[in-house]
Each structure stands twice: as structure tokens, then as C-alpha cells.
């Protein structure tokens, strides 16, 4: 990178709170956001739990009901997190001339709600009850709300959010696994570093939990079965439980360090490096690339926040990578993981971890990976950081993994690091 890029704002919406402060406070306690699915009757699904965020208040965000329908919950969460991030950065809630403001998001699928298509589907059934294209084409398709096709394009709601913010600059939407969040952050940092944007938002929004979306979760992840009260997801526990889908969004404000300091902005963290890899040893290769990307040589890591989704095999793979990255136990960093508390935020996972990394840098505290008391019966696969105030980590390595084996790593450092 030609110019250092820093984070000056970080907005977060999760199942544990509608902003970063509320989420952080809840993480300091013993709560998990996981709860039985409430949006629909999920009794037929193997996994019936999710960490569901509160429905966004479109009116409070200045979004009309019609636009809120098109944007959907995901992009409204994104807008909510973006507004919070901009406020923290001391930047306008809406730019008057946003041609030099970029916006890069990682978004998931926007699944049709069955109710959107139910009337058309019912009129499309033939005598045998099966779908009859002739009936559909004849007139049944006209039962579909004409703007519905926009509502299932994830980028359209993103554009509407950007329009609310007055953003007209460089942009992209990446999809749809956790690795997409790294793509968004990396490209945002790139355009800021190169001077193609004075400010760029980088973040993501999780998919809202819907019937079709939960179906895909079952194919893409090793989910935690059931909906009981027992601790559902315990990353790096020998019996980790499985993945819990999460909802919410996270957005970071990125600027060149010199410009941010010149306007007196508080530097929350420095984007110190990144790496992407796939296939065998991807976790190791991505991490090594991230740690050697900066001009100052290899970074020493004080805290590792890996993907840690709670799926036994993938957690074990990361644990093995940890031992390759830091073969000497006395020189190996402690580990933090939040998906046991917030669920798996999919494309928003990396930005959410980054927003929490900002809090860790600010407070010197690391939240517990598991709800209090969960998993006390067994030692974790990795040395999880002790909850509460600790060694005040200054350099943190974040890791994410897509639905298959696409991996990315991002290094963040405390603001005063040169």
C-alpha cells in the first residue's frame, strides 16, 4: 500500500445489540444471541436456532415503507451500521458531494419470502397440484409485486443505502460467504490508499433468516441441531456444537492516516495487511501473507481472531493452522472467537470481528468465546484468551473462511503503531 489506511469509525448491529456499545456490553456478560427462530415456523428444519437481530426501524433511518421493502432487512442493517460508523468518525450522515466517497459491502443472498410468491404459485398450480408454466405465464405471474425483482437483487438495496448516504464513488458488492467481507475491506483499503476515494465504507450485512435461506445454511454449513436451551455453538471446544446462523451488519470507515489525523479524527486501528488463499494450507498462507504485507516486515500477533465458526472439522483445521503458524507455544498468541455469542454473520463476519477488535484495542479486554459456564467440562483446542482485562493486544490477526475453502486474513494494529 502506498498510504497507510486507518479505521476511524465502526458500526455494528448484532443479535446482542443495535449498536457496537450494546453488543460490547452484552459480550461482557454471559449472554449468547442464539435463540429459537422466530420469523417462521422452523420445526421441520434440523437447525431451528439463530442469533437474530432486532428488525431495523426503517422510519428512524429515514427510509419509506416502499424503499424498505426493496432494501430488506439486510441492507437496512447495513445502513444502520453505516450511519453509526460515520457518526463515530465525525463525518456527515449524508455526503453533499459523495463522488470521492467509496462503499464496499459483502452481502449474502436475498431470498424470496414465500409470501411474495405464494399467490402466483397458487394460481400456477395445475390439476395435479404441480407447477404449470402455462398458467404461470398466462396471468399468474402478474400476482407478483412489480418491484419484487429489485428486492431480491442484493446490490439494489445496497445502492439505496448508498443513496441515503450520498455516496457516489468507487464501490462493489461481494458475495456471499465470510471471505467476501475480506474482499470488501481489501478493495476499500486499496482505493483509499491509492487516493481513488477520500473515505470508503467497508462492511457487510448478514442474510436475514428466512425459510429458503435456512435451507441453504443447511447445505453450506455444519449447523447446530435443535433449538434447546443448551449452549449451541462453542468454537474450538472439543464438542463444538455446530454453526448458528447470525443476523446483523457491520461497517467500518476507512481513510488515509494522514488525512484522518489532519482533520483530527480518532484513529481506532490501522489496516496493517491482508492475504487471501484457497485450497490446502489456505489458513496458513493467508495469515502469512497478511503478516508480511506491511512495509515493516513480519508482524508479531498479540491476539488471533480466527474464523472459529463452531463446526468441528473446520475448527480443527484452524487449530492445526495455528500450530503451524506459531509452533512455539510460549510465543503463540491467545485466541478469541465471537460466533458462539453472535452467531455466524456470514458476509458481515469479518467487519463484525474488526468492529470488536477496535473495542479490544480500546479497552484491553477480550470477551469470552463461549457463554459463561458453557464447555467448562473440557479444554479448548486452542488457548482461548481469558475473558476480561488482559494483555491489551496491539496487533490482531483476523481470519475468515467462505463456504468452501476460500480463506482471508486481515491484520489490524493499534493506531499509534508506525
Amino acid at each position: 500500500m502506498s498510504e497507510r489506511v486507518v479505521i476511524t469509525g465502526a458500526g455494528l448491529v448484532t443479535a446482542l445489540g443495535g449498536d457496537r456499545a450494546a453488543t460490547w456490553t452484552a459480550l461482557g456478560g454471559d449472554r449468547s444471541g442464539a435463540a429459537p427462530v422466530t420469523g417462521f415456523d422452523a420445526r421441520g428444519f434440523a437447525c431451528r436456532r439463530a442469533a437474530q437481530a432486532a428488525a431495523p426501524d426503517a422510519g428512524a433511518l429515514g427510509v419509506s415503507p416502499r424503499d424498505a421493502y426493496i432494501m430488506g432487512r439486510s441492507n437496512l442493517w447495513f445502513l444502520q451500521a453505516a450511519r453509526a460508523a460515520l457518526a463515530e468518525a465525525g463525518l456527515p450522515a449524508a455526503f453533499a458531494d459523495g463522488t470521492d466517497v467509496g462503499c464496499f459491502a459483502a452481502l449474502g443472498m436475498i431470498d424470496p419470502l414465500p409470501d411474495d410468491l405464494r399467490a402466483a404459485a397458487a394460481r400456477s398450480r395445475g390439476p395435479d397440484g404441480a407447477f404449470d408454466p402455462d398458467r404461470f405465464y398466462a396471468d399468474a405471474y402478474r400476482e407478483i409485486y412489480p418491484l419484487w425483482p429489485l428486492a431480491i437483487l442484493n446490490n439494489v438495496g445496497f445502492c439505496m443505502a448508498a443513496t441515503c448516504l450520498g455516496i457516489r464513488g468507487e464501490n462493489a458488492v461481494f458475495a456471499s460467504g465470510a471471505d467476501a467481507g475480506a474482499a470488501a475491506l481489501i478493495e476499500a483499503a486499496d482505493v483509499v490508499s491509492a487516493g481513488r476515494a477520500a473515505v470508503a465504507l467497508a462492511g457487510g450485512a448478514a442474510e436475514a433468516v428466512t425459510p429458503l435461506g435456512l435451507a441453504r445454511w443447511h447445505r453450506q454449513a455444519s449447523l447446530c441441531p435443535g433449538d434447546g436451551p443448551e449452549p449451541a455453538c462453542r468454537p474450538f471446544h472439543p464438542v463444538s456444537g455446530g454453526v448458528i446462523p447470525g443476523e446483523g451488519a457491520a461497517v467500518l470507515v476507512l481513510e488515509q492516516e494522514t488525512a484522518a489525523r489532519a482533520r483530527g479524527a480518532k484513529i481506532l486501528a490501522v489496516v496493517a495487511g491482508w492475504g487471501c488463499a484457497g485450497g490446502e494450507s489456505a489458513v496458513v498462507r493467508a495469515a502469512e501473507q497478511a503478516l508480511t504485507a506491511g512495509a515493516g516486515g513480519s508482524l508479531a500477533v498479540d491476539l488471533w481472531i480466527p474464523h472459529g465458526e463452531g463446526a468441528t472439522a473446520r475448527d480443527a483445521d484452524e487449530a492445526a493452522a495455528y500450530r503451524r503458524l506459531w509452533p512455539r507455544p510460549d510465543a503463540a498468541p491467545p485466541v478469541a472467537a465471537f460466533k458462539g455469542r453472535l452467531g455466524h454473520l456470514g458476509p458481515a463476519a469479518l467487519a463484525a470481528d474488526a468492529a470488536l477488535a477496535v473495542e479490544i484495542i480500546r479497552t484491553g479486554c477480550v470477551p469470552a468465546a463461549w457463554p459463561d459456564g458453557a464447555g467448562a467440562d473440557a479444554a479448548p483446542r486452542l488457548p482461548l484468551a481469558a475473558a476480561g482485562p488482559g494483555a491489551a493486544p496491539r496487533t490482531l490477526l483476523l481470519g475468515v473462511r467462505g463456504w468452501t475453502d476460500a480463506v482471508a486474513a486481515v491484520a489490524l494494529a493499534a493506531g499509534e503503531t508506525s
Partner: protein
Amino acid sequence: MSAPPRVVVTGLGMATALGLSVAENWDKARRGETGIRRLPDPADARSPIQAAGAVSAADRERIARAFPEAAAAEERRTLFALWAAAAALHDAGLPAGHTRCGVALGAGLGVTRMEDITRWLDPAGAFDTVRFGAELDRLHPESSGRHGHDRAATCVAARFGLDGGTATVTTACASATQAIGSAWRAIRRGDTPVMLAGGADSMIHPLGLVNFVLLGAAATGGDDPATLCRPFDRRRGGLVMGEGAGVVVLEDERHARDRGATVYAELAGYASSMDAYRATAPDPEGRGAAAAMRGALAAAGLAPDAVDYVNAHGTGTKLNDVAETIAIRSVFGPCAARLAVSSSKPLFGHLLAACGGPEFILTVLSVAEDTVHPTLNLTRPDPKCDLDYVSGATRHQPVRAALSNSFGFGGQNACLAVRKRPPAEGGS
């Protein structure tokens, strides 16, 4: 700090209604042939859309034979991506398992099959989520309940052993162009020396076909399918859907030279912008589109008078074609009068999220061979569209540099700048 590396194009792969090879697509484009035909599936006989640039059944069979393991389980668009990626890698002379090659593909929205709704309606017409949840194995093989946006990119990376990381861009019709631009940036940053980039999409299924009818953007007339797509013509009636894929190999120029690769052209610049106007219409002044073109020129270090050709987004919708014309005029000023502009969409339809892939390939070939394919079906120009759209026949002219435009629903604009391949080391 050293300058970022130049990025060159060393491999091309396509799957469109015109055919499964780049040579076939390019030959037909130059001859002015179209792949837009009546929908072949009798089940679509009553569709309000009667024509599309559908990949022929014979060509889909050929792809299925090449990737039998994927044919049974994957979406149609993923198969197109696999085919185009294989062709691009072969064209570039890159072996499978190139561990320093990443993948960036544009992808469309999830495939929603009406069967996946009707099957689980209860007798009262309500969707039975309980029964649905218990019967997930009955979902249609192409259903969005099975596949995420990133399915094509991850399948390509896995199939060809490309370990440099994957990215999927979902910005509607700008997706593939932004994916190629994102790959260009990754190489310039030094993240990886090689990227496979482009896009793949298909929405030729009942709900996909009516989507653009509901939005009022599709050409639904009863015209001859071959003349239904008419960019910049006063009789244009909307977009005509296509399907397929276009994938290229991008390389750090030094990497390409070191391995003796053939270079088609240099991808010299890329930029994106947002209209911040309306979700349903482009900015009528074309300000966002113009910003993307200006950004790409600046990134490439090109002055407007150094560009000879623009491969337009040119959808054939009333609003896009006028706004794009205004944008081109505002960027090129007096130079617009000598600029060749053409749309590739009458050749194989609007490939939606993938459109930037095949259109970028035709742009690269235009620069490489000093040839501009015509805009088909432009016989009565709209007075508001007053540029040289190369109507009629292919034009052989110097093409020193060219732009490839893609503008997405929602207001995301992207532009790629291509110029002649850089001279060999030691050359002039």
C-alpha cells in the same frame, strides 16, 4: 516504492448463444450474426418473453459431457463458468493447479424456481415451512436454497486447483466488469500474479424470464427474434435476455513475459461509480456513467483522444441508451464525433451479471485486431442517440485503446480501459 505492474490479458474463454469458442463468437460478431432465437423449450410457449440469447441445447450437452460430475448437481450458470474458465486457462497455456492464481467472477441473483414454492403450498395456498424444512432434499437442483452467489467461483477454483483466493461480485449488470476490475486491482497490489476473471449467469427459467417484464424493461414484442434487440434505435423496446459466461486470464505483465505467454492486450484501467439517483432508472444525465469512464481513463493514463472505441452497455432500453450517449459525449467532448461505439447485446443478448465478460473479450479483440463489430438492428437511429454506433458492417480501423462499459440496476457503473499490448522488453 515501485510502480504497480502492468496487467495483460493472456487467455479468453466464452460460452454464449453464438457458440462455445471465442473464435466462433468473434467470427459471428464480425459477420453480424445473432444468437437470439425463439425460446427452445416448449414449456415457455406462453411466456411473455418469446426470444432470448439462450445457449443451444447441443452446446449445453457438450458442456455437460465435459463436466459430467457438475452437470448433475450444479446450476446452469456454473456449468457455463466452468466451460469458459477451462477455455481461458487453455488459451493462456496455464496448467490446472496454478497455486498463485485467484478467481473473481460476477454472478447474478439466486435462482428461484416456482416449483420450490408450489411444491410446499398447503391446500389453503399457504407455504408450509414445517414440511419444507423437513424435505430440503427435494429442492430443485438449481434452487437458491442449494447454491449461494459464489457457487460458480468456488467451483471453478476447486475444479482447476486455483489457490489464490476467490471473489464473487454481485452488482447486477455491472458484476462481471467489476469482477475483472477487482482482479486488475489484486494484481496491481501484488496480491497475486494471475487472476481468472469474468462472469457467468443464466435466468432462463420462468421466474427469471418474467422478472424484467414486471420491471417494464424487457422487449416483449412479436418481432423477429433476430431483430428484437435494437440498441440506440428509435424502435428499441427493451432488453433481450441472454445467458452464458465470459472469462479471461489476467496476468502481471512480467509473469506473462517470463513464461512466454501470448498477450492480447493490456487492461490499463478500471473505475466504478454510483448514480445515487433511483433504483429503477439511470441518472438521465449519465453523471455516474461518465464518472466511471473518466475514472478508468485516469487510471489508465489515457486522454480521451487516445481512445478509438467504446463497447457500450447499450441495452436497448429507452433510458439507458440515451443516458449512456450523454455520458460518452460529456467524457469525450469533441472527440466523441470520431469515436466508434457499438453494443454487443444484439449478438448474444443481455447476459445480465455476466454481460461484462463476453463484452470485455470482444473489446480486447477489437484492440488486438483493429476491428469493431457492428451494432446490429440499428436502422432508424434515435435522434437522442447521436454517436457513431457502427451500424451495418464491421469496421476495420485502428483501435489504439477502448473502453468497455457496464451499468447495473440500482445505479452501479463500471468501466474497463484496454489498450494495445505493451511493447516487448527492449523494443520500442
